């Protein structure tokens, strides 16, 4: 809890950045370097070395980092299908399944498919993953792959729409689409947000979250959030602007509030690439400067607004009752340990795990 606000981190990841898992191609290696640099440079001084990061991150360490080292109460974790970059897609399906089975009171899970493989494969894999993890709440998608470079569109009625229909029929509530942050020096167009409008209109019962909202194409993202009740901006990576470039974060939040309002913004950070607590500390005291209020003509952000952003909106979308969720975690293993130790130092669990030789660190 953050000053009484329930914190629901809408994206967290246990990557596998080992040499063995990273395809030996220019784009794949570059993406891994990019992730390592993000960890090093956007929250300088608190992270792990590149060598320590180039390992297979255990889901248990993610859980401990989230719930013992930060004020996060619940989190989502995604099965990632960046198969053309990483052999296991970057976050393996087994990790998502482990998270929601071991700690159902703490984690919600997303299944993942790669639409560039075609509709039949997507539908089959969606069904398979939901058989294995029926408690899944969402579907995670990437707009493009490499080697060969290829992409698909969210407004493709023959590929995307049947997939969304199946997701809806199978009870999923939300579709997360990675946008705005190109995965290396690859064509930019698939990462634009010009294909959200039609599916948002066609599938009003599904929520669509634009992951990395505000990283690029901010105005277009705002317009989608402004027009469609079911389009949300997910702050993965962009929330780290709060620590890396506070002025840029304030400008983004000003735009989001002006166009869409506090009900349309979802907090996440991509933990463990970023650590949640420094970002949450910034959000705890976040206020617009007078110049921002004047520039965007928005009211000052309130604690009620921030409570929506850090958890209320996401819980509402998923149909999770926050008071019931609080009760479920009140005496779980993380709450008990934290009651004994207090909030634990940043990345202390990950460091301890590596120090004790629990990880096979790449040479």
């Amino acid at each position, binding site marked *: 809890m953050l000053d009484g606000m329930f914190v629901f981190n809408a994206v967290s990841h246990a990557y596998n950045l080992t040499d063995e898992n990273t395809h030996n191609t220019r784009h794949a290696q570059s993406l891994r370097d990019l992730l390592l640099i993000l960890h090093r440079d956007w929250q300088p001084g608190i992270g792990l070395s590149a060598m320590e990061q180039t390992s297979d991150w255990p889901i248990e360490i993610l859980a401990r980092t989230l719930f013992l080292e930060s004020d996060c109460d619940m989190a989502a974790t995604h099965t990632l299908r960046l198969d053309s970059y990483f052999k296991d897609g970057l976050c393996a399906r087994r990790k998502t399944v482990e998270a929601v089975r071991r700690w159902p009171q703490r984690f919600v899970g997303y299944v993942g498919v790669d639409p560039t493989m075609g509709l039949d494969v997507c539908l089959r894999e969606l069904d398979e993953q939901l058989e294995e993890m029926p408690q899944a709440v969402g579907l995670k998608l990437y707009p493009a792959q490499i080697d060969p470079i290829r992409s698909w569109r969210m407004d493709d009625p023959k590929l995307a729409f049947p997939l969304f229909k199946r997701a809806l029929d199978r009870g999923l509530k939300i579709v997360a689409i990675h946008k705005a942050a190109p995965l290396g020096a690859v064509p*930019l167009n698939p990462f634009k947000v010009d294909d959200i409008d039609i599916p948002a209109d066609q599938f009003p019962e599904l929520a669509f979250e634009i992951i990395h909202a505000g990283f690029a194409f901010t105005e277009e993202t705002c317009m989608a959030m402004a027009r469609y*009740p079911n389009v949300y901006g997910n702050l993965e990576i962009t929330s780290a602007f709060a620590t890396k470039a506070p002025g840029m974060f304030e400008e983004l939040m000003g735009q989001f509030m002006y166009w869409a309002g506090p009900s349309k913004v979802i907090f996440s950070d991509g933990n463990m690439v970023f650590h949640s607590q420094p970002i949450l500390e910034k959000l705890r005291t976040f206020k617009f400067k007078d110049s921002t209020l004047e520039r965007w003509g928005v009211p000052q952000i309130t604690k009620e607004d921030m409570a929506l952003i850090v958890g209320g909106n996401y819980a509402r979308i998923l149909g999770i009752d926050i008071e019931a969720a609080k009760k479920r975690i009140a005496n779980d293993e993380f709450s008990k340990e934290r009651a004994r130790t207090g909030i634990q130092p940043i990345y202390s669990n990950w460091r301890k795990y590596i120090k004790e030789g629990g990880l096979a660190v790449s040479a």
Partner: protein
Amino acid sequence: MNTLRDKVVASLADVVDPCSISAGAPLSVLDMGLVTELKVNAAGVVTISMRPTSAMCTMIAGIMKGVEETVASIEGVTGVHVLLNSDTIWTEADLSERGRRVLEARRQRSRGEVQVKPHEWKTRRSRLQVSS
């Protein structure tokens, strides 16, 4: 007097940030505020420092290559060093006056084209609730 430095500055007006093209507001690296330092020594060696618009920018290497090739083609330039400046953070405040005008015009045009009203989704939600 058209010095070598003047020629270098003029040439940079032809190197356009690719993301600004995608955004419909093409701006040169100068108007974008990506060039943080430019030195020309007596021997004709040019040193240019550049910053990305964000730490996760994946286009900066290509932009730097474009700068290097453009400047190298100027008569009198004997060498080009394009350096990455990751110490300073780019914000919209770093746009040139012209850059700000171009971007604002693009934004105005977008708003005019799309006719979006702030918080319009609330109206649509109400309609959905009424009809259902």
